[in-house]
């Protein structure tokens, strides 16, 4: 096991975690957001999990099935999983194959409001084949499945079999993870208590308190005053990084995230259909200076939609070049000429568009303002129309009603680089597809590459396919990749074993191993 | 004796059985209580007649005045102006008739808009009559002179005047409407004797010269006496006696009137009536309103409120003790 289970010097001292959003979903199969993940990973266990190196590590399963250990048949369609016998639920009941079956069946049931059915819907013919063993058959091979299953938390069948159980579960969830539910004050905190019977050891502390602190500035202050030990989600704003480093007894940590911050285009808009326009816009943006000044050198510039920690990341993509003159010339060549008001146009289409992002994010607003000025410089008008999150991510985003947007998106599927929901041409909701291709991006070559990569279990084949996809996306620019998001998390000195993990959506993933140094 | 004005076939103003009951909710926790401010008041005012109304404070004088002006909805009864029933006319329909009657209010400081200059205040009636320009100014100045004020007042705000001057201004405003009837509610109470005399003379003059009718409400018997042709006496909302002035002063026929007259201070003499034996307001519900305080009350007085009945020519009183010989404040003439 990667962890040497060890109690901290002072296991009674609780760890106080500050998050700027409130975890509210305590049933891991229901739709939830990142902040819920941080909690759910500690209450529940999956069959296996992804560690900070990207390796899958067994959790409820004895081993992670693969072709080499025979857990997956050579055609990638027959799977066999063996459970460890000693795992129990928080209420003392053993974790059994029935629970796994129940969980997978929930996800496969179209009537169940599961947060995602990607991959799982391909599973067929599940059966228990031994006291601790089960098998299933895939309707089609699907390489990302292990990564997908790493985020499928197993739920207790005996607690959820009946009507109305789901609602009771929301106030008293029972899992098999390292921590047990210790109570909740809505809008204030959630308390977790160490699970003494945890199958992977004993958590390093007895209690964890997760506090909801909606204002980022306030959260930083509470970190400053020592009211929270760990500042997690949403993190410390870049412009406070220097200040945070000067604190004594606490330190900021740059934790790489799977999110890629960039400017997304809606290619359904006539002004964006010409790749020259997208390229020119990219060229006109002084990305380096933005990263240097507004982002205080905290963020890592990138050209890919994959995080650099991914094994599939292509480091050889052409770098961005800031060259407004080149941008102007490119537009001139493409026939976009400045009109009398200085705004470029072609065939009655003006180079004018709106840009939106979630309101109340000062860094993004500053970046928008800088871009706005830079684009005006080359004859493009960008109007800023930000929206609150609930509006922004509603139909406006999903139905491609935006012109362009400043967003940070995790394009991967778990730790797998599968980004087909975002880039395959048949996955655009605005065109009737099921997926997240809100860019309305369509490139047959990309479509083919995804199909190849997702059905192959051969690492080399997949690496090659994803490298080509990254190159094509970099060339076509349905989104302008600015940087890979670094979350600056804050940690009090003397709290050991924090590990940043780009493969999961929350760095609370190994909270069980955190402990107070002696 | 100047003799009563011969009754006009059609009186200018005629009040028929006017009653007003206020529903007063003293608190959330109590039932609304009915307060009879006026009960079955019947009066006529002829053209060119000055009718005085006296009575103790709260006896309903202002209430009657306001009902006569249709500024207050009567609970029962009717108001006739020039023979026409105006009790149920809408405010809209009433508007043209309002020119004919004007009111001077009891409180001089409350009846002038504190945010307007005197010119603005006096322009309002002229404008409503359609007089404008030089004519308006001319008329304004003439009327001001009538009440003893000069042109210098026009630019000033009401707050810069003394109580007496304000009272004169509101009289001037009423006169500017050129009404046929004025209801003057204690119009001279706040004035010093000199100005009071001016106004009293002015009213007499207007009555003689323009045949103006005046309903003059007051509590200074001397003033009311000097100005009025006839006087009505009210007690607790009920009209208890009505008679030509001299007749009333010489020989009151209602014990309350007698009591009122006896309280009038005269030079060097102060005759205060004995304080009432019972706390006020405790008269029998059906009996005569004055029965609780009346020194002459008989048993019959406690069972029934007597109606206003003629006791002499032009003289009516609501008292069953017609046998009494009550003392007035003027010597008996006969």
């Amino acid at each position, binding site marked *: 096991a990667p962890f040497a289970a060890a109690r901290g010097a002072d296991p009674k001292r609780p760890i106080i975690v500050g998050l700027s959003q409130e975890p509210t979903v305590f049933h891991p199969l229901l739709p939830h957001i990142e902040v819920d993940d941080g909690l759910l990973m500690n209450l529940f266990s999956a069959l296996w999990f992804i560690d900070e190196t990207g390796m899958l590590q067994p959790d409820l399963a004895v081993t992670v099935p693969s072709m080499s250990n025979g857990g997956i048949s050579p055609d990638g369609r027959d799977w066999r999983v063996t459970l460890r016998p000693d795992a129990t639920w928080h209420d003392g009941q053993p974790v059994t194959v029935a629970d796994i079956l129940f969980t997978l069946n929930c996800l496969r049931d179209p009537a169940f409001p599961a947060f995602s059915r990607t991959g799982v819907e391909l599973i067929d013919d599940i059966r228990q084949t031994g006291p601790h063993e089960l098998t299933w058959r895939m309707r089609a091979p699907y390489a990302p499945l292990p990564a997908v299953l790493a985020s499928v938390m197993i739920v207790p069948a005996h607690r959820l079999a009946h009507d109305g159980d789901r609602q009771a579960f929301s106030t008293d969830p029972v899992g098999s993870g390292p921590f047990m539910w210790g109570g909740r004050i809505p809008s204030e905190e959630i308390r977790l208590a160490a699970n003494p019977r945890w199958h992977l050891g004993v958590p390093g502390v007895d209690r964890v308190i997760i506090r909801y602190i909606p204002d980022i500035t306030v959260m930083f202050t509470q970190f400053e005053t020592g009211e929270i030990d760990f500042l997690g989600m949403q993190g410390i704003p870049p412009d406070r990084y220097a200040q945070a480093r000067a604190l004594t007894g606490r330190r900021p940590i740059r934790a790489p995230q799977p999110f890629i911050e960039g400017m997304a285009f809606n290619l359904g808009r006539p002004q964006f259909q010409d790749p020259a326009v997208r390229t020119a816009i990219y060229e006109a943006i002084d990305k380096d200076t933005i990263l240097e000044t507004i982002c205080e050198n905290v963020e890592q510039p990138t050209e890919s939609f994959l995080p650099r920690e991914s094994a599939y990341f292509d480091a050889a993509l052409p770098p961005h070049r800031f060259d407004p003159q080149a941008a102007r010339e490119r537009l001139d060549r493409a026939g976009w000429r400045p009109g009398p008001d200085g705004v470029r146009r072609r065939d009655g289409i003006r180079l004018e568009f709106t840009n939106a992002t979630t309101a109340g994010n000062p860094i993004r607003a500053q970046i928008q303002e800088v871009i706005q000025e830079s684009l005006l410089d080359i004859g493009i008008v960008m109007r800023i129309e930000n929206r609150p999150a609930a509006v922004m991510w509603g139909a406006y985003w999903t139905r491609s009603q935006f012109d362009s947007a400043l967003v940070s998106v995790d394009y991967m599927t778990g730790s797998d680089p599968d980004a087909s929901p975002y880039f395959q041409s048949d996955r655009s909701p605005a065109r009737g597809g099921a997926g997240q291709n809100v860019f309305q991006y369509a490139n047959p070559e990309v479509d083919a590459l995804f199909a190849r990569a997702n059905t192959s279990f051969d690492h080399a084949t997949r690496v090659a396919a994803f490298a080509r996809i990254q190159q094509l996306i970099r060339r076509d620019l349905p989104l302008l990749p600015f940087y890979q998001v670094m979350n600056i998390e804050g940690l009090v000195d003397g709290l050991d074993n924090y590990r940043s993990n780009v493969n999961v959506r929350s760095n609370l993933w190994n909270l069980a191993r955190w402990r107070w140094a002696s | 004796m*100047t003799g009563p004005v011969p009754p006009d076939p059609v009186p200018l103003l005629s009040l028929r059985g006017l009653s007003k009951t206020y529903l007063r909710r003293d608190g959330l926790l109590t039932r609304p209580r009915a307060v009879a401010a006026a009960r079955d008041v019947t009066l006529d005012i002829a053209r060119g007649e000055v009718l005085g109304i006296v*009575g*103790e*404070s*709260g006896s309903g004088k202002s209430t009657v005045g306001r009902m006569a002006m249709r500024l207050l909805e009567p609970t029962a009864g009717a108001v006739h102006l020039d023979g026409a029933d105006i009790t149920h006319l809408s405010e809209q329909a009433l508007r043209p008739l309002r020119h004919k009657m004007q009111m001077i209010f009891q409180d001089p400081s409350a009846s002038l808009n504190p945010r307007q200059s005197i010119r603005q205040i006096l322009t309002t009636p002229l404008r409503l009559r359609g007089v404008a320009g030089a004519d308006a100014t001319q008329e304004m100045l003439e009327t001001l002179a009538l009440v*003893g*004020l*000069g042109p210098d007042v026009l630019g000033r705000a009401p707050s810069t005047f*003394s*109580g*007496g*001057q304000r009272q004169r201004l509101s009289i001037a405003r009423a006169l500017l409407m050129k009404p046929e009837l004025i209801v003057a509610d204690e119009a001279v*109470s*706040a*004035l*010093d*004797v*000199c*100005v*009071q*005399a*001016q106004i*009293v*003379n002015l009213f*007499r003059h207007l009555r003689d010269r323009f045949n103006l009718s005046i309903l003059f409400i007051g*509590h*200074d*018997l*001397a*003033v009311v*006496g*000097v*100005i009025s042709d006839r006087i009505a006496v009210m007690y607790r909302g009920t009209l208890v006696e009505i008679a030509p*002035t*001299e007749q009333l*002063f010489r020989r009151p026929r209602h014990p309350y009137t007698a*009591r*009122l007259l006896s*309280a*009038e*201070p*005269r*030079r*060097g*003499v*102060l*005759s*205060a*009536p004995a*304080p*009432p034996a*019972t*706390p*006020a307001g405790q008269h029998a519900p059906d009996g005569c309103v004055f029965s609780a305080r009346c020194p002459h009350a008989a048993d019959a007085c406690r069972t029934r409120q007597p109606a206003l009945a003629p006791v002499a020519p032009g003289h009516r009183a609501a008292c069953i003790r017609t046998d009494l010989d009550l003392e007035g*404040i*003027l*010597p008996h003439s006969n």
Partner: protein
Amino acid sequence: MTAPGGGPVLRVRKLGVSFGQTSLVDGLNFDVGRGEIVALVGESGSGKSVSSLAILGLLPGADISGSAVLHAPGPAGDRDGIELLGRPERLLRPLRGKRVSMIFQDPMSSLNPIRTIGAQLREILALHAGLDGRAAERRAVDLLAQVGIVDPQGCMRLIPQRLSGGMRQRVVIALAIAGGPDLLIADEPTTALDVTIQAQVLRLLLDLRADMGMAMVFITHNLAVASAIADRVVVLYAGQIVEDAPAAAFFAAPRMPYSRGLLAAAPGLDRIASGARRLGTLPGQVPPPDERGAGCRFAPRCAWMMPDPCARRMPALEHVAPAGPGGPPHLARCARLEEIGE
């Protein structure tokens, strides 16, 4: 009735009141003897209320000059007395209510609308008579009975709104006399009342004078009232005293032309009988405070006016007839006193 006697309780000398540039009252001289009722009459706006407020130190923002000395009552009074004008609030407060009290012009608004009559009376009694608890309660009931309230116990528990105007006026008087003052200034206490209640109130004030020897300044417009109650009459015109006479003498034979005009304008009952309904009036108007000339202020309206002394020089307030020792003086302000005669 107690005859006025002894030294004055209040001696006012050269009292002047002005607001900024406008002088409202100037050179007021008058005395109030022990147990004496002085009626202050005069046209509206002549400064009656202002002067009495000034004496009590209740006129903020005004410039006050002259002197008003309060003497202890007694057969001879004391020599020095207490100067009221310019006395700091801290030192004035103990005098107010105890030595000198005031009833204001409007009885309706002079009582605290949300405290019971009992509470208001008890407060004053605790303050000036040192009474509290039972004793204060008893004294309060006594006072209310004394001012003629029929059900004093019940009245104690009521708030002013539940009382009729006459009752309220009597409560105000009860408050004013609770401290047993030597001097009571009553500013038109009966103007708002009807004649029956007015008569009761006047009777009450006379009784109080008789019982407690309280001196009184009685401000009024109503000459009939003044004649019924006052020992002496002081007439104010345009901020000056124009006549100061014993009541009897005044009503019999006023000497100053304005006083005569006043009496002529008063509506007497005799007029009704005689049928002479027209009241005597004075022509013209009172000059506003800032348009007072150097001469006699009444001159422009005076029938006896002569250009020479009247319009040029202000006449002095002079004795009409030589007052005998202890006899009541009669003063008037007119250049032609002699000629006008009686």
